[in-house]
């Protein structure tokens, strides 16, 4: 049965994968390359958060600590270590994972709003450390002039750097996809849906959550590192709570528990910010805020989630595509449960009905 489902979802899945890869490859031809790189970085960051929010059921409001922390670490390695940028990015990702270990250890015992608050508090602590530690971080001026070299090759042109940074983003997305599809990922989903039962079955729930937290942080760190090298600086902005909020918003816009939805959310938000910057309109927050409200009220599954839901209802449901067990396709099982961490049960049923 599993084989047949793989084969069935495989054809559509492969087609989507090819489209996604093509989109990633031609993006800097379509839009301004530095903006394309921003989208790629935020897409990975959103996927990393979705790993935690969508597949483990934990809403972290402190992921800026890993994105921004890695940005500083990557920058320092590239700036003072004279290392080529891939080493710096890996160093940054490792730093983010190390940072996530104690933070996660202390936070994963909590869930829901308490988990969100504790992670937010830790992220704000990191922010204040970076703000005060001026000799290392440059304070509010940020860490400026991070080099972007690879074995003597100057990658200053953002068009070329996009292709230099893209492999990291794709590798990160692939890792997230593999994690979700692995037996480990299945356990995470079961913990999300019913932690008491998972515990009763003998799974050490907290340890699973911690590992998911650390993996998510490492992927966020990878994204933050590419972002820092791409822009040539790391700033306090990356550590501020608004960064955590922005990535949560991207995931919700794209669709919680869809993994790829985050990429769409990232594309929408980054493009919107870029467009509004020169649109001559003074209320940027009003526009992004209104779009967010509309999506949350009308499309609870997010852009990708809604699209997939409609496609399933039209094409695949007669063939029994959605008839299988929830463990087979976590994204599908996600829809009713997804708004739970943020919204509450009434929304979930409403979403299911429409």
């Amino acid at each position, binding site marked *: 049965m599993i084989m047949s489902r793989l084969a069935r979802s495989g054809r559509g899945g492969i087609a989507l994968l090819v489209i996604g890869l093509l989109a990633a490859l031609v993006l800097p031809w379509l839009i301004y390359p*530095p903006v394309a790189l921003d989208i790629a970085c935020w897409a990975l960051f959103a996927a990393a958060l979705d790993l935690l929010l969508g597949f483990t059921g934990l809403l972290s409001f402190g992921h800026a600590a890993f994105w921004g922390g890695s940005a500083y670490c990557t920058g320092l390695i590239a700036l003072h270590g004279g290392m080529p940028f891939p080493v710096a990015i890996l160093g940054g990702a490792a730093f983010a994972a190390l940072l996530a270990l104690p933070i996660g250890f202390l936070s994963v015992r909590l869930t829901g709003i308490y988990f969100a608050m504790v992670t937010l508090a830790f992220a704000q602590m990191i922010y204040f450390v970076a*703000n005060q530690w001026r000799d290392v971080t440059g*304070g509010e*001026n940020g860490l400026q002039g991070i080099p972007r070299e690879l074995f003597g090759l100057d990658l200053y042109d953002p068009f070329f750097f996009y292709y230099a940074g893209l492999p990291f983003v794709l590798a990160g997305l692939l890792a997230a996809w593999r994690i979700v599809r692995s037996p480990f990922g299945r356990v995470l989903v079961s913990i999300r849906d019913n932690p008491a039962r998972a515990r009763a079955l003998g799974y050490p729930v907290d340890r699973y959550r911690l590992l998911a937290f650390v993996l998510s942080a490492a992927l966020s760190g990878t994204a933050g590192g590419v972002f820092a090298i791409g822009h040539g600086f790391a700033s306090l902005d990356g550590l501020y709570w608004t960064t955590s909020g922005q990535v949560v918003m991207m995931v919700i816009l794209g669709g919680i528990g869809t993994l790829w939805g985050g990429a769409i959310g990232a594309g929408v938000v980054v493009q919107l*910010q870029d467009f509004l910057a020169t649109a*001559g309109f003074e209320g940027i927050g009003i526009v992004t805020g209104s779009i967010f409200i509309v999506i949350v009220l009308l499309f609870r599954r997010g852009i990708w989630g809604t699209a997939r839901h409609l496609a399933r209802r039209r094409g695949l449901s007669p063939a029994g595509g959605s008839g299988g067990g929830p463990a087979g396709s976590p994204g599908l099982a996600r829809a009713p449960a997804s708004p739970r961490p943020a919204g509450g049960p009434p929304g979930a049923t409403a979403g299911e009905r429409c």
Partner: protein
Amino acid sequence: MRITGWSGGLAVAGLLLAGCGGGPGGGGKISDGGVVLAVLNDQSGIYADTSGRLTIEAVRMAVEDYRARYGDKAVAQKIDVVAADHQNKPEIANSKAQELYDREHADVILDVPTSSAALAVATVARNKKKVFIDVGAASTELEGKSCNKYTFHYGYNSYMLAHGTGSEVTKDGGTSWYIVYPDYAFGQDMERTFSAAIKAAGGAVVESDPTPFPNDNFSTFLLKAPGLDPKPQVLGTMHAGGDLVNLVKQYNEYKLRDKGVQLALGLLALSDIHSLGPDALAGTRYTTMWTWSMDDQTRAWADKFQARNGKRPTSNMAANYSAALQYLEAVQRAGTDNSDKVVEQLEGHTFEDMFVRNGTIRAQDHLLLHDAYLSQVKPSSEVKEPWDYEKVIRTIPAAEAFQPQPDPACKL
């Protein structure tokens, strides 16, 4: 305001068409068919009032004045003004600056408040070899560690603000100080300069306290002030924006002025006085780079500005006008908009205009040295017309107003 913005745009467009029809003039040496001035600043956030969209209008006024002055002899016949909102985010400033230089063919970027954003744009300017004249940011790092051949710092910086207020108010007899400053790079730098200036002028700092940033309750610090030993005569503060508004309101609530503690500020914008009301700040001394009511020349320009925009200009807007005008003058002298040639013309240039008095652009670090002013807020009884809140007490000569020596960390 939107309507005036449109009509302003139409006027510029009309002038552009006229300029194109005007024949070859000095053409040929101008890249991409024209000179493009780009304003990159905050149009939706905390600096939207001090800088924002009216700054773009100020830059347009500079373009018109340049045209009026040179007419057919103008080297730059076709001049465009473009703008972008960086939302105070350094990464948006970074990509927008690249886009402005690459896609809009901007020859110069102006304004850019927020230090981290300004420093990011300075790096872009260095890499693209294009001119960047920063007005809005206060960080001295722009002419220090992060200086480069194509970056200029125009108008004010944290040294000017702190040194001016610190030494001038001490000379006027306010010799014992209590300092509160926001605990981040800008505040820390200002506190250092402030203390040094006070001591050099013969005063003493009783105590100096960092406050969290951002912060909305300053009662701990304000209540403590009158009880310090010896009692400070002046409360010096380095806060800006919303924090300053909160601090000033509480300063008045606790009636510190009646208790003999004067208020002295580093940075104060006309728009801040307007929103707080002059009585909340009456008697407060601060350092400024320009005031619209300073003399006849500034008044004439402010009248023109008000006729267009319905408001009096802040010093930041005037500084951007001047920066745009001096850039165009440099293009005129160089006969081209080639960055290296224009930089050559700007370096060491000595000049005066509506905004700048006794100005020199120091060749070693690209910092504009010019007269600054110790000013005081008038009580409402002395305010004779709308927006007339400021009184210049004394001119601080250009040689004293800014860092006397270039930062050795700056290598152009």
